[in-house]
């Protein structure tokens, strides 16, 4: 080999950044990549999560999940409902709040603080508070309904199959509205003024400006909010665990809680890791194409 070839193989300019990055990469590999790979490998075993012995069973855990485990499908359905509700309803409320609180009026900072406040409370505390509010006899909600003569609308909110999951979603939405509002607010504050002035001169009304200017300008914000919504909808755990423990009758389970119960309560770590693997695949299958599509649209529009 010539010295010029040697130089190409060992170019200090190219290697140096990697050397500086290597501690972080090593740490990342140890605490993220290795457990993820190990988790995927474990999903092909029958294992109680404790014993030294693991039995290789191939795709059996996945087969059981798809064909013999009704709770898996209930959990997947619940995650999907969570995602759709958050995408369509919660984010719409966040956007509406952001639009209102972007207007200049006295006290808007206070209102921004009030709507953001639930986000800073821990989810466990939120779940406990709302759990009490949902209490069938002592809770605020049924008490208020009684007070206004609507006692017939009172429910066993967290104990009734028809209302339990919806009650959990309401609680989670209440907490999440603040952060969505903040994202949209920051997006709204970067909007250029001149297109709106031009549109106004051309006779566009507020609704037309919103759909033809605001929404397209907020594309980048939508990418962030929708991606985060999808990810958080599928990894939701704490609000379900704290409010219903997956009940009644396992009907409010989501993939993360079922994964937890299978792994740690039912001593079925193989099934738990299979659920974890599927969870990652589902999230990537939804989020990655969306981000790529939005990125391509963003580049082409530039």
């Amino acid at each position, binding site marked *: 080999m010539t010295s010029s070839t040697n130089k190409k193989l060992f170019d200090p300019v190219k290697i140096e950044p990697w050397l*500086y990055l290597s501690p972080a990469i090593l740490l990342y590999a140890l605490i993220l990549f290795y457990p993820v790979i190990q988790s995927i490998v474990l999903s092909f075993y029958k294992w109680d999560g404790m014993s030294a012995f693991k039995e290789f069973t191939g795709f059996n855990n996945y087969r059981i999940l798809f064909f013999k485990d009704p709770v898996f499908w209930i959990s997947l359905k619940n995650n999907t409902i969570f995602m759709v509700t958050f995408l369509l309803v919660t984010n719409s409320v966040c956007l509406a709040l952001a639009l209102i609180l972007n207007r200049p009026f006295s006290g808007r900072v206070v209102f921004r603080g009030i709507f953001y406040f639930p986000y800073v409370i821990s989810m466990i505390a939120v779940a406990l508070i709302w759990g009490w509010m949902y*209490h069938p006899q002592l809770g605020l909600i049924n008490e208020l309904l009684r007070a206004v003569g609507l006692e017939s609308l009172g429910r*066993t909110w967290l*104990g*009734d199959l028809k209302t339990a999951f919806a009650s959990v979603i309401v609680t989670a939405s209440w907490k999440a509205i603040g952060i969505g509002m903040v994202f949209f607010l920051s997006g709204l504050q970067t909007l250029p003024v001149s297109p709106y002035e031009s549109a106004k001169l051309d006779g566009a009304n507020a609704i037309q400006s919103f759909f033809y200017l605001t929404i397209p300008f907020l594309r980048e914000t939508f990418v962030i909010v929708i991606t985060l919504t999808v990810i958080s909808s599928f990894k939701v755990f704490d609000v379900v665990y704290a409010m219903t423990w997956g009940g009644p009758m396992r009907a409010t389970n989501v993939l993360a809680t079922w994964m937890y119960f299978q792994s740690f309560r039912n001593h079925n770590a193989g099934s738990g890791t299979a659920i974890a693997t599927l969870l990652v695949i589902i999230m990537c299958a939804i989020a990655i194409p969306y981000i790529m599509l939005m990125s391509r649209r963003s580049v082409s529009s530039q």
Partner: protein
Amino acid sequence: MKKIVGVAICLVLLVTTSALAGGGQEGAAAKPVTIMLRASSKPGLEKIMEDYIAKYPERQVEITRVPIQNYFEQVSVVHASGTASDMWEYWGVETGGYYVDKGFTADITQWGKDHNWDTKFSSASLKQFNRQGVQYGMPLTMHAMFLFYQKPMFQKYGMTVPKTYKELISIVDKFKANGISPFSVGAKDKWHLMRITDSLFEKYCGPKLRDELLVFKTTWIRPEVINIYDELRRWGEQNYFNPGYLGVLQREAKILMYQGKTGMILEGEWWEKNCTDDGQDPSIYDFFIFPTDWPENRTSVFCEGWLFNGKSDNVPAALEFGEFYTSLEEQKKYVMDLAPPSAVLGVSVPAEYKIMNKVIGMFPTLNAFAVTDQGMPPGLWEEYAFVQENILTGNMTSQEGAEYMEEKGKEGMR
């Protein structure tokens, strides 16, 4: 080039230093006894530890407390990762038996014989930590379940303590007639509803059959089980429980009892201390065993104990501490800080705890059965809880419930 060599040397030094930092403990003092238990449990442990170290200054004890919500998970994780403590607080029967079967516990049968455990602990509590002749746990506490009621309420409605199941149902009907929910249940805590289901199993099956069903030694598809589920459904349809019980926790259900909105609650003898801690008057309460119409008239019982890590080389030291902890002197000294009643014979509680003293007096002759969430193999009790909910909501027929349990028993969840 010099920069690259410099960075590489720094990296090597960093890695080497980190690898060496963890060691260097050879030749240090005797290994401390490590203990894991629930965060809320036995505040007297630290006091006993201080007495132990005062008596044996060369010995050390390290305590790790884990939140109750994560306790089962933490125990399985530490064993899976090989970082389990020398001894840990746990329950017996099938719950603790699971760890015996997996080889995680030490066989302390000989230690028990050498230290006269048959005269030190109640036989019922020793049995809970004995698996096929192998003693694997040191009992600490023993708890029994009873139906608690308010004496003034019974007097007001002319009720007397029922001796038969029929008499219990007539009391239930009286409560209902007076607008009071007969039973306070927080079914969101599945084990709270489980106690009612367990009592019905005991009533309709009797001791022998119930114990066989618990460990799936016999078929679940049988008339007795169908009758149990029919009766459980009837309880739900006839509004024997507080409204909305499926969405209520046990700690919320007890408030209804305090408020006089419910007539009875199936709780352990700790009900008295709960009342005191919650600012209620425990003297207005009394209790009776759920009448099952069998001569034994068993009630459900569970024990807590120390289990010892079979993979640890420090078990003898851990057992020494365990013996000190369960000595009569220490148990009496800190009795109310150790979640009484103690499994150690001869330990009474202060006279003001009338209910607890009454229960302790009953222990020598009390006939007991294991609660399902400890007596059934892990994972299978979750199915038992699932079926009881489905029966009450009408999502399963009694036949379907029995068939479901039969199928799950065959599959096994281990």
